[in-house]
């Protein structure tokens, strides 16, 4: 038992996270300092959680999609749409719960639309979701008419910037989602079915798995997660910025999932590790910020990180490292 837990801790994702945090600490000695202030925790690590939350939430939705051998490129655009819907509704005088519900519904519908294209019309996921990726942001702009729709609704603002038990609300939402989704896939057979569909959809159908419904759910969840992230991001800046909200975040989310060890070819997946992936990305972003690096280098550092993580995960490294450093599944034997 102990060995198994140790084995799990020694996986490349957590090692990478530790590495990034260590570098941050070297560059910025106060990185781990956390203080209590105005009823909330305050510090760079908390920022990592808070800022990483939207991508983590996207990754929670994305990981299921990727496990079914799909990908959802539309999440960034769906974030923009959800934010736009929530903001325009509260500005038009609707109560916040209705605005939030409407935004979530829009996200869910977008997800189901993607699921419909993938599951029913059998369109390759990249293309299917490319449609909403392109059109979705346009629709979001149509809703806001291109303006940043600002609001002062306390509920939305709380979702974006409030805190609960000292933790930023965004991080709390991400953690709750992580727990719910992890339980949902691991305590039921959903996870197994998702993996089965990802590995061999034809065989899954013949084995009595309703792969169409499953894909609909999975994409629906991804859309829902995107909407949640969209509301958080809008609440954070007290405004819906259809142009920039979630821009290119789909790539970060996919990256997070891949860093989390889920193959883009579908199959085995892990929700917690995808979230770890999101945190790694954010830890690096925050590290660049606090260490005072010139901004021109941001992208290069990011590219470097990707290669680093990929090299650690690749089969090549498997041969160089002792077996116990390799991913969990193999090490378990």
């Amino acid at each position, binding site marked *: 038992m102990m060995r198994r837990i140790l084995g799990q801790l020694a996986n490349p994702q957590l090692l990478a996270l530790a590495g990034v945090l260590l570098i941050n600490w070297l560059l910025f000695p106060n990185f781990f300092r956390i203080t209590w202030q105005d009823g909330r925790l305050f510090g760079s690590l908390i920022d990592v959680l808070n800022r990483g939350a939207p991508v983590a939430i996207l990754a929670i939705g994305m990981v299921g999609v990727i496990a079914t051998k799909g990908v959802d490129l539309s999440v960034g655009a769906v974030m923009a749409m959800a934010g736009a819907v929530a903001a325009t509704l509260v500005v038009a005088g609707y109560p916040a719960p209705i605005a939030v519900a409407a935004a979530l519904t829009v996200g869910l519908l977008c997800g189901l639309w993607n699921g419909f294209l993938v599951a029913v019309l059998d369109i390759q996921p990249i293309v299917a979701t490319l449609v909403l990726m392109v059109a979705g942001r346009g629709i979001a702009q149509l809703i806001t008419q291109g303006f940043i729709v600002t609001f002062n609704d306390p509920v939305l603002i709380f979702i974006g910037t409030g805190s609960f038990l000292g933790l930023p609300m965004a991080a709390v939402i991400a953690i709750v989602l992580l727990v719910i989704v992890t339980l949902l896939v691991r*305590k*039921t*057979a*959903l996870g*197994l*079915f998702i*993996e*089965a569909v990802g*590995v*061999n959809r*034809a*065989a*899954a*159908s*013949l*084995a*009595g*798995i*309703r792969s169409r419904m499953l894909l609909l759910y999975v994409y629906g969840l991804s859309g829902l997660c995107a909407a949640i992230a969209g509301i958080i991001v809008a609440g954070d800046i007290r405004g819906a910025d259809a142009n920039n909200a979630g821009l290119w975040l789909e790539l970060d989310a996919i990256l997070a999932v891949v860093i989390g060890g889920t193959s883009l070819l579908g*199959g*085995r997946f892990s929700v917690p590790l995808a979230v770890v992936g999101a945190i790694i990305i954010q830890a690096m972003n925050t590290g660049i910020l606090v260490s005072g690096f010139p901004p021109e280098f941001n992208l290069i550092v990011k590219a470097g990180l990707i290669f680093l993580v990929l090299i650690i995960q690749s089969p090549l490294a498997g041969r160089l490292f002792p077996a116990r450093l390799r991913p969990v599944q193999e090490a*378990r*034997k």
Partner: protein
Amino acid sequence: MVDADYALEARGIIKVFGNHVALDNVDFGLRAGEIHALLGENGAGKSTLIKILTGAYQPTTGQVLADGVPVAVDNPQQAQKHGIGTVYQEVNLLPNRSVAENLFLGHQPTRFGLVDRRKMERDSRDILERYGLDIDPASELGAHSVAVQQIVAIARAVELSGKVLILDEPTASLDRNEVERLFEIMRDLRAKGLAIVFITHFLDQVFAVADRVTILRNGKRIETRALDDVTRTDVVRLMLGKDVAFSGATGVQDARPLGEVLLDFRNYGRKRSVHPFTLSIHKGEVVGVAGLLGSGRTEMARIMFGADAADEGEVHFEGKPVSIARPTDAISKGFGFCPEDRKAEGIFGDLSVRENIIIALQGKLGWFSALNRDEQMEIAGKFGEAMDIRAASLDMPIKLLSGGNQQKVILSRWLATDPAFLILDEPTRGIDVGAHAEIVRTINRLRDEGLALVVISSELDEVVAYSSRIVVMRDREMVAELSGKDINPGVIVQAIANHKEGTAS
């Protein structure tokens, strides 16, 4: 053992996958002008050995020699340069490209540096003609049946084999005539001095063409002998490492009373797939389905299971009309289906053996009543043992198992759901004698336990052995239903061949 006139030789090959030794110090020599059969149970290491000979795998230790000289075969391309042509076990061509391109990929004729398509297609036509295939070389390979694809694969390998031709179960999806033609070509090539490796599970075929035989068991080479020196029983004994009585069953068609009707298909059919057929299936009987390749047996099975929806007729289950429009409908009534194409439709390659076994049961239970790990282990362990599934661990990915063991896993998957009706499409294809007997025994046992079974098989002896009735398919139509004394190969062949010139053998 060292023999200078070996055209191709493997010496001291050890191949380890993870912690599984697939080949253990194997020597294998191939002379020019011989047909050398390579035999062994499923998972004995035959395919692995030839993959090493052809550069698809690298040996952990050991050497490959051509004409007595050590050579490095780092990839299949180099093997081709050494004049080795190979048909791998699965049809491994490119369904998205034309037939001609599949034949010539890698060595297309060129003019001014560009591929000369006209010449390529002309040459292809000539080549295919030798195999009795009259198809448009420019057509997409994927549009043709598995059998045609198999022949194209063989033709390609023959074209590439300047010196050595390797055939890993090439006959699995061919009919008698096609097999005969393949043998002619093999003999012809042998006469021209080629060295040929032939892997199959059909002992008849081995004795029909091969000169020598090498037998592998559990990754070890057991024997290499001239075929003249051995008998069938010797071979089987060597393969299994023990004596087995041939289950050369002559049919248990004693007039056992049939159970009550479980399923009743009435004018059941699907346009452009299967003509409407009428068939009732009783509890405790095996209905065998015979027919030539492409006669629509698989399609019939698929609509019975709801994998394709029927658009005509009706079906009654236990006397009541039901709708079976999708596999879940069928499964909820206790159906099970082992598909013909194991790799594409049967196994979940990356999932564990355990998950592969429990998945249908779990599908039936639904998401919320998930089996926990221990329950899964118990179920998988039970069937693993009952079916004698040989896997290092139930947690290893099923894709690492040999074909026969994969088939047993899929059968276990359905048995775990406690089915009332099983459809088995070619359950014994590409399976060794031991596993074969195992599966036939299982079929018999299930029937005796009161299950209804539909079994599709191309091996007439086998169908005859366990079927209570036999349905014959031809041109996507059910043309005969045989029972009682009619259940013998002769009658079946008659029924298949009826109105067709010269197919009866």
